[in-house]
Each structure stands twice: as C-alpha cells, then as structure tokens.
C-alpha cells in the first residue's frame, strides 16, 4: 500500500484508458502521456496497462507501507526517497516506511509513478482509469487526497536501480525550440470551411496554452481563426486529439477526459503518436501545428512502437545479464 501525504491539483490513478465504452458516451480517460506510463510499467516488469498515478502539480509526497519497486517517468523530476536522489525516468526500490518526495518538475507537465504490480484499484467498465466526468474508476472516481491509502498488487520481481532514456530524447522532433512543442496533425472534417489565409494563420501561429487547460482539453490563445461562414453542426463523435474551433476562434484540443461528442467545427486532429507531447506541454508554453499526411502519421505511430519494442528488449536483456551474474 502507499499513503498520500501531500498532493496538489488533480493527481489521479490512470491506466492506458477505457476503450470499449465509447458507444455509450464514456470517454477513454487514461494517462495523458501513455508512452511514459508504458515505459514505467516495462521497467517494472508489469503489464503495460497497469495503473499508475498521474501527478500534474507539486508538491507531492507519499509513503510506502511495504517494500516495493517503483518507477518515475514522464516529466523531468527532482525527487528524493529517504535522502536518496531519484533521477528522471528511473526505477528504484522503496523500503517499508520510506517517504518519496517530488520536489520539482523542471520540464514536462505530468509525472507518472508506477509500482511493481500496479495500483490495484477495481476495474470499472474495463479500466482502472479515473473518469473525472462520470466520477467513477480510479480511486473512488476522484482526484487523490491527503490520507488516501492505495492498494498495490503483489509483485515478485526482484529489481535493481535502472533508468531509461526519456521518450522526448529518443523521439526528439527536429527544429524544436525551448518552450515550444511542435505537434503533427492531420486536417479534419471542416478544414475547408476556413479560407486559405485563415488556414495559413492556423499553421503559422505559435499558440499559447492557457491556464484553462487540463485533462478535458487544452484551450489555446492566439489570433482568431474563424470559418468563412459560421459552421453549425449537430453534435457528432469526436476523439482525443481533435482540434475544435469554437465561435471565438480560439482552438481547443480535446484530451483524454473529453466528451465523446461535440458540435464545434474541427480544423485538424493531433496524430496519436504526438498526443503525449501535448500531454507534457506546460501551461503558458507554446504549441505549433505541423501538417502531416495520414501515411506519415502511421509512420510516426510505428516509430513510437519501435521505441517501446526496443525498450522491452533492452530491459529483458539487462535483466537476463544480471540474473546470469548473480546465479
């Protein structure tokens, strides 16, 4: 078990998401940075869909009530456990009573704490993710609070300290400036409802991520992007990544806790392989959109899968080497 000693903002239990209930209007939820959650679980020898804790704000502090392995992935982190410094993208071991303190996140927006065996909350509608909107899943369907004691599944893996190259390094994009995230998008249904000058404005602008951005969606600020004529549509199915243009011309990117339907015109959609980059973009920082063809979106997906495949192979290899040496 782990006990939350200090928490700020909506930290929550998340796995990869709830994917089978969309037709009933239940959104996916799930980790905003799914690559980081997978990497943590791979490091620990967990099922990659095991639930972890998504930490968006600091300070955060918790106590381990038994010996267990844990990993920190996602945002860069300054963390300490019983006086020991934990580097970013790292797995380590905690002893009973150890207190883990997250002191700073120098880059990125969300940190993932995974534990050996995973956070053992009940599956609800096929997932352990917290559904904020519906107030179910995760830990009692709500953000974590001080005093919460989360059950952890048993894990038999014996594990030493080990780090992983952060996905942001391995999957680095060219021409990325500090404090600006470039995400690849494919154009969406109502793109042609905007004239050429407005489309160009959408591509060339550096969009500021406003404080009204969270797991539901990111509200961006920049020049007004408005269609040639107002577009009135009935509510229709939308997915995380869809970029809508409401009447004020300020884009909204739908994220993991988005509704399953909406009526605003859609100008573009962030490709699946870059959604985690949006999830790690900080409030107040900037986003730029790069138009991508569908085939390139698939290639990006393959590149991400290759990173995870390599990670799985590397971890297995190092584990085997250690077992050989100690036997």
């Amino acid at each position, binding site marked *: 078990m782990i006990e939350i000693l200090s928490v700020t903002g909506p930290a929550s239990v998340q796995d990869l998401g709830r994917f089978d209930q969309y037709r009933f209007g239940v959104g996916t939820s799930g980790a905003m940075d799914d690559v980081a959650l997978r990497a943590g679980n791979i490091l620990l020898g967990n099922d990659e869909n095991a639930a972890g804790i998504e930490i968006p704000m600091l300070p955060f502090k918790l106590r381990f009530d038994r010996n267990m392995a844990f990993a920190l992935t996602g945002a860069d982190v300054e963390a300490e456990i019983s006086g*020991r410094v934990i580097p*970013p993208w790292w797995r380590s071991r905690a002893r009973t009573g150890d207190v883990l303190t997250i002191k700073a996140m*120098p880059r990125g927006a969300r940190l993932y704490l995974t534990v050996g065996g995973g956070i053992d909350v009940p599956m609800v509608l096929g997932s352990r993710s917290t559904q904020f909107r519906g107030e179910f899943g995760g830990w009692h369907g709500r953000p974590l609070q001080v005093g919460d004691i989360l059950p952890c599944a048993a894990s038999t893996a014996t594990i030493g300290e080990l*780090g992983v190259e952060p996905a942001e*390094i391995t999957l680095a994009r060219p021409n990325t400036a500090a404090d600006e995230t470039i995400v690849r998008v494919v154009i969406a249904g109502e793109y042609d409802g905007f004239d050429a000058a407005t489309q160009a404005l959408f591509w060339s602008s550096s969009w500021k991520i406003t404080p009204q951005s969270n797991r539901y969606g990111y509200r961006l600020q920049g020049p007004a992007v408005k269609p040639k004529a107002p577009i009135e549509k009935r509510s229709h199915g939308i997915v995380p990544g869809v970029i809508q243009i409401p009447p004020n011309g300020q884009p909204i990117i739908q994220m993991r806790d988005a509704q399953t339907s909406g009526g605003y015109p859609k100008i573009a959609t962030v490709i699946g392989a870059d959604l985690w980059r949006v999830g790690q973009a900080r409030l107040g920082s900037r986003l730029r959109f790069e138009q991508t063809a569908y085939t390139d979106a698939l290639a990006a997906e393959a590149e991400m899968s290759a990173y995870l495949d*390599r990670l799985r192979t590397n971890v297995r290899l*190092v584990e085997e080497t250690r077992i050989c*040496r100690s036997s």
Partner: protein
Amino acid sequence: MPIKLTDIARLAQILEKSGVDTIEIEEPGQSLKLVVDTGPRMAASAAPAAPAAPAAPAIDHSVIAKADVAGHFLAAHPWRDQPFVAQGQRIEAGTTVGLVKIGLLYAPIVAPAAGTVDAVIAETGATVGYGTPIVRIRPLS
C-alpha cells in the same frame, strides 16, 4: 553446468558488438576468460584517460567505482548540466556516480564506499565494460 562451446561463441559475439575486450566467468570447478583483440580501440581510449590521473600516492588506499555492464559512460543525466559527482565531493556508499548507457537504458555506477571523489577517470561517451574503473574515491579515514 558446463559452459558450452555455443555459449562461448555467443559471448565472443556479444563482446565484439559491445566493444568490451575481456570477460571472465568463474564458477565452481571452471573458469573462462575471453579476450577480444581490440588493440586500436584500447590505445585510443587509454590515451585521454592517462593525463587525467594524477600520480598515485606511495600507498594507495583509494577505492574505485567500476562499471558492471558494457556500454557508454555518461557523467551526467542527459537532462542535467551537472554531473552526478565532481572532484572533491563527499559521497556515501551507494551514491550514483555516473551511468552506463546500454541501448535505451541507463545502468547506475555506484560508489562502493563512502569518501571523497578523487577523480572521475572515465570520459563521457567512452566505451566501458565490466570492471572498467569510473571514479576514484578516497575513503573516509
């Protein structure tokens, strides 16, 4: 279990690929030492390390933090400007003094004893192997 010829061939391949020149395996009743001829590489990596090492004192009590896996040495985490340890720094046993990068992984190199960092011997990016000295530590008392 006896070491099979196929195991030796596989180990030799791994050595060659990883750029490590020697491996020794000792088990009750048997020992194996494999040496790969990496002459030019040895000369290249030995040269820069030599000037960094000051003259050894008459009686050398220093302890050495060594790599325990083959890969490339990193003095700092890629997201950090500061190295894990610097000369003169006081450290505890178990302190991480650097990383070995193996593919996508970072294996920590830990201090075997508490003391003061005398010198970081290995250069960032250098190919290291099992037992390569990384940091010299002057132990307490």
